């Protein structure tokens, strides 16, 4: 399973999201390949899931991956709930 964590520039924020997602997945006992990147690169990268915020999700409409929306990248509870719902 491949998951992309996406922010505008693909540098800092998406990396923090990736670390939090990896932690949550570990707690859930799910193994996945998690990458972080910018919104332009993500639109051309295949994946099973994309995790991003509401604004950027609109730029990724039509992507084959299922898009999971997380608005607070630092809220482990929100990440966990969204992931449990989607997986």
């Amino acid at each position, binding site marked *: 399973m491949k998951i992309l964590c996406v922010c505008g520039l693909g540098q*800092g924020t998406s*990396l923090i999201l990736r670390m939090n997602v990896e932690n949550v997945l570990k707690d859930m006992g799910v193994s996945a390949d998690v990458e972080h990147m910018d919104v332009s690169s993500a639109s051309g990268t295949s994946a099973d899931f994309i995790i991003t915020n509401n604004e950027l999700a609109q730029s990724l409409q039509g992507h084959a991956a299922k898009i999971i929306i997380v608005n607070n990248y630092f809220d482990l509870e929100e990440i966990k709930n969204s992931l449990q719902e989607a997986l």
Partner: protein
Amino acid sequence: MDVIFWIATNIFGTPAILLGFIVLLGLLLQKKSTSQVISGTFKAIIGFLIIGAGAGVIVSSLSVFEPMWKEVFGLEASSLGQFMGQEAFNSKFGSAVTLSMFLGFLINVLLARFTRFKYIYLTGHMMFWTSTVFAGIAVHTAGGEASFWKLLIMLSVILGLYWTFQPAVTQPYMRKITGNNNIALGHTSASVALLGAWLGQLFGNKENDSEKLKVPKGLEFLRDPNVITALSMGTLFLIGAIILSFKDTPGATALIAQAGDQNFIIYAIIQSLTFAGGIAIVLMGVRMFIGELVPAFNGIATRLVPGAIPALDSPVVYPYAPNAVILGFLGAFAGAILWLVVLGATVSYIFVPTMIVLFFHGATAGVFGNATGGVRGALLGGFMTATVVAWGQFIMVRYLISSTVPDTAMWAADSDMFILGPIIRFLSQLFF
């Protein structure tokens, strides 16, 4: 002795390999699987090498942009003289830069462990650019040569202090914006964010909060830095090319001749997109190695510092005031255009209005300005960002870093680096 010399030259003296070892160590400490260790180490090394390649692309495009606007303003002197350039600088001083990032981070962790400043700086890409630019200033001040150990010690201490206290300085406003004390700002936009907050307090109207505004839909593309870079640089290249097409000066003729058979305006537009492409390459390289480094840093910090507050990249504040983000950027954009003209006409400097810096810093200053002064605070914060970035870039490229990495300073150096630049120069004069 031969063995030590060999190791010093080929491992510590080859930044990509040194970085590979640091990342390898970090991945092993995190007890990652064998395949993760191997792929992570290689990705970090490749990423670091990509940066140099992308920097070359940016320079090739800037070396059209700069003379073109010089001709537009009818200037004689070039902003760029002889300089080392990012790739050569990396291969010569990259080891000191990489190690000082690591040691600076350890100083940050120790300060957080033993003082009341619990902030851990986790914005890896800004750590890299800050280290690079400060090293560029130090080496320039030292006359192009600097001893590895002196450079390493000076940079590590300065960076360790900066990474600990920058989040502390912005935290009172961060509490106001986020409503809690869980996260801090760890970003080089701190100085303009503070300026935004102060100006908002002085001249703003807190009641007129930006979030009461209705921002038109269809501005989503503003969230993609590749697009805003291409769009704004494209516009500037286009304007420059059109003006030049009507000029008969020898400089203009020579530049137009560079396009060969291609129409000069099309050539200029391709150059602007090449600039955006170069930045995308560099960012991809930075992402590849920072992505392996920061989780290791995070692992170290959470183990050693109980109650650590992560200091994070500037977009953490954007969800708290999305309209202020747009207003801050608009203020910064207007300021950038104004200062482009003023700097060209008065001090003969061609300002490169680097959109990534203007967007992320303007937006952060916008959110801080809105917190104290509403819409007016957000716009003022953005405008002040452009002011610091434009004048800062002029001073840094021309006086502080001109022989080392002015090519990087023209698009990747930003607010805090410009504010601290003269101090770094002063300290380097004392130290070297």
